[in-house]
């Protein structure tokens, strides 16, 4: 029998309670239990960044954190930050510059970019490249992504 635990957390501003197996990843919990399918599972070993979500204000890999570890936490996903319009500036710039193709990496990429934006500093292209180098994109050459982030973070938009 699996070990199961009761957890209560705030996801996108709403309190949710569930009984979850100890082994359940946060991203699987979000996708399977809450049906928030915007966070994607790409590699499930913490390399690709497609499952990046925000926990208590910090971006984390949803595949490297267990759902039980999020007990009592505030979790924000792409769906929540889209509805709250927090990501609107980045989403607009990504759209205008075609900084996405298949879109599978995009929610995680936006989470990472927003994290940089929240630091409130001007950044070089080099720094942007470094900041998102934990997020794998196979479709673009990263350049449009860097362009879009640069525009928003440095306030050129």
């Amino acid at each position, binding site marked *: 029998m699996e070990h199961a635990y009761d957890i209560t957390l705030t996801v996108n501003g709403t309190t949710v309670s569930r009984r979850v197996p100890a082994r359940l990843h946060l991203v699987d919990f979000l996708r399977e239990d809450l049906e928030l399918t915007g966070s994607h599972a790409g*590699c499930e070993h913490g390399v690709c960044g497609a499952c990046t979500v925000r926990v208590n204000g910090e971006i984390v890999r949803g595949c490297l954190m267990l759902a039980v570890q999020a007990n009592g936490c505030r979790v924000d996903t792409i769906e929540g930050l889209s509805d709250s319009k927090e990501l609107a500036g980045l989403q607009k710039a990504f759209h205008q510059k075609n900084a996405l193709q298949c879109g599978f990496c995009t929610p995680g990429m936006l989470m990472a970019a927003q994290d940089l934006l929240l630091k409130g500093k001007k950044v070089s292209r080099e720094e942007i490249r470094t900041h998102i180098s934990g997020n794998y994109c196979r479709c673009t*050459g990263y350049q449009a992504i860097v362009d879009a982030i640069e525009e928003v973070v440095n306030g050129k938009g």
Partner: protein
Amino acid sequence: MGKAELPLHAPGTKLDRGYIGQSVPRPNAQRLLQGRGSYVDDLRFPRLAHVVFYRSPHAHAKIKRLDFSKGLKSEGVIAILDGRAVAEYCTPWVGVLAHLKGIKSPPQHAIAIERACWQGEAVAAVVAETRAQAEDALGLIEAEWEELPAVIDMQESLEGKKIIHKEFADNICFSRQHDTGGVDEAFAAADVVVEETFEFGRHTGVCLEGRAILADYNAAEHSLTVYHSTQAPHMMQDIFSRHLGIPEASVRVIARDVGGSFGIKVHVYPDEMATAALSVMLRRPVKFVADRLESFATDIHAREHKVKIKMAVSRTGEILAFDLDDLSAIGPYSVYPRTSGIEGNQVVNLTGGPYKHRKYRAKLNVVFTNKNVTCQYRAVGHPIAVALTEGIVDKAAAKLGMDPAEFRRKNLIPDDAYPYTFPSGIKFERLSHHQTLNKLLDLMSYKKLREEQEVLRKQNIFRGIGLAAMIEVTNPSPAFYGVGGARISAQDGATLRLEPTGMVTVMCSVTEQGQGTEGIFAQIAASAVGVSMDKVRVITGDTGVTPYGGGTWASRGAGIGGEAVLLAGRALRSNMLEIASKILNLEKEALDIGNNAIIGKLTQEKKMPLEELGRVAYFRPDTLPMDFQAELTVTRHYTPRQYGFTFTNGIQASLVEVDPDTGFVKLLKHWCVEDSGTVINPMLVDEQLRGGVVQGIGAALFEECLYSPEGQLLNGSMADYLVPMSGEMPDIICAHVETPTLQSQLGAKGVGEAGTAGAPGAVMNAINDALAPLNARVTAMPFTPERILRALAKA
């Protein structure tokens, strides 16, 4: 054939081209930006069962016993089945084509029966209520194996001392010889002969979304709906129909959002066929999503070539002849239905492609091994052909003391030589090598870079500049697959429907994988009909809805699908004008469509909104003449036929800095000048080129599927198999020459694979240029720091 009329027209005139050539954002990207796409794993179904596969731990082994008894008792397990059970519902296949003479491959089953031929081949399927439960049961399967001799090395395979498939006399899947004659004479007469052996590691697509399929069988109708992360829904419809015994029209394949494909998702995978068969067997929806390890072990791999190339050159730097010997290994089966013979065949077709020599000889051997299968992956054969050609060209230029750019200029086929038949037999409609070369040299300030390189060398900073000219297969005709008996459509269709409110719905058989096909179809449809893009909606990826067609592969979406949309758009426009002429009682010729309205052709004055036209045509046709029926849904198809392939050309350059102490290569900048004919959306084209370049850089520097001598995959995770991340990638500068194909109205050629085709050769040449003063040279991709250090130690 004449070019399209207003609002599309031949380039160069000052008339309005509508949205063609405009960098408009893709409408369909909005949902993806909010995480509201629907990839296969996002779908929710009642009674959905999950399948996982028990895979062979050995490269080659006989299955002596499989014991499912413990697994079957595990919580949530619905069924555990072996190859024989699944074979009752799914017939085997053979990956051969008639036009690849002599190609052979044994029958392949959805689940291996009796024998596994590579580590990772599925030998049992476990179906459970949740994926976690299925994976729990996987650990309870007991298997007894008898290991068989495995053939891992391709040279060993060619020698044939150990035969993989007993029904064959050797391990050769396919071989080809090509000879124009006169090659030995050309080499005998040459002032300079250069020779090199190049090696290309196996690599794979690493789509961020793994392969995914959800099959939903309806027992009452004997019908099957498959939600599939695929590039070719109609091809898969045909295959599910024939191998599962369900009438073609009762199989519907739906490809919603696809998380990257790059050629990985255009093949028949045994585990996916098994998933469909299991849905039929169990009479409920069944889903399979490959995890990352499964992706590395079972997504098709590509490349793995070892090629000896020789080139004969005159004293003045004129290329006289090429002589090629390519050995390539494809795993234990030729992949169905495209075969695994195409990549090697392309290397033979394309090597030396940009140049004007007339003598050419090539030998190709494609052999079986006990590793994962290989097949067509982005740029199929091109990266090999380009790197070989451009590598040996640089070597010859160096030997003659000529500048590599000037050496190329001397040998590139002149821009006024077309149509042109290349010594391998392929035909070029019209290419622009000299224009692209000149543009590239300007764009990168070539002379200045060379001067800078000289100065830096004196400071022991080793920078290299590498060029790679190329030709590329795009817009393939039925000559690619159809003539060989494959049920793979070279034609595509588009249906356009005017909605009552004046909106336009486009349904096209070319699919969207993120490259922006839906976006450019909206641009083309809006331009052709005369409406704004916000009035257009595009539907792709559903065999139940769109016209029949090939889908996405071989850089064909814009050139073939786009042309179908254009033709349908023009036909719809004509029909709309005819209805308007009846409503307004005016001559059709006096009317036009612009700004979502019927307008006077000369005055541009608004006569009637399209909403009004739609209202009358759909709800008040009683007001139209008795003998007139409005037709506001039209379908058109397009097949390229005049040429086997619509070749494109381009040239890339790479600027790198090599650290001789660490062997690390720093990519400083990359340039790409491409002639893909009419550019429909420069922004989309440029980032697709860049994505392709980055994928090619991955092949050149990082990516290789490594196997142990026993055939065990050594790097099945993203921590061990390195892919390009943003931190190491350079800015990539793109520019275009536009030579539209005259075969179509749109004039678009393909562009999706160009970046990947040229980048490895350009990076290789740049590294070797950097290493030249140190007398070191690398020829085996990927050029890891270790390989560069070894080359330096040898120097």
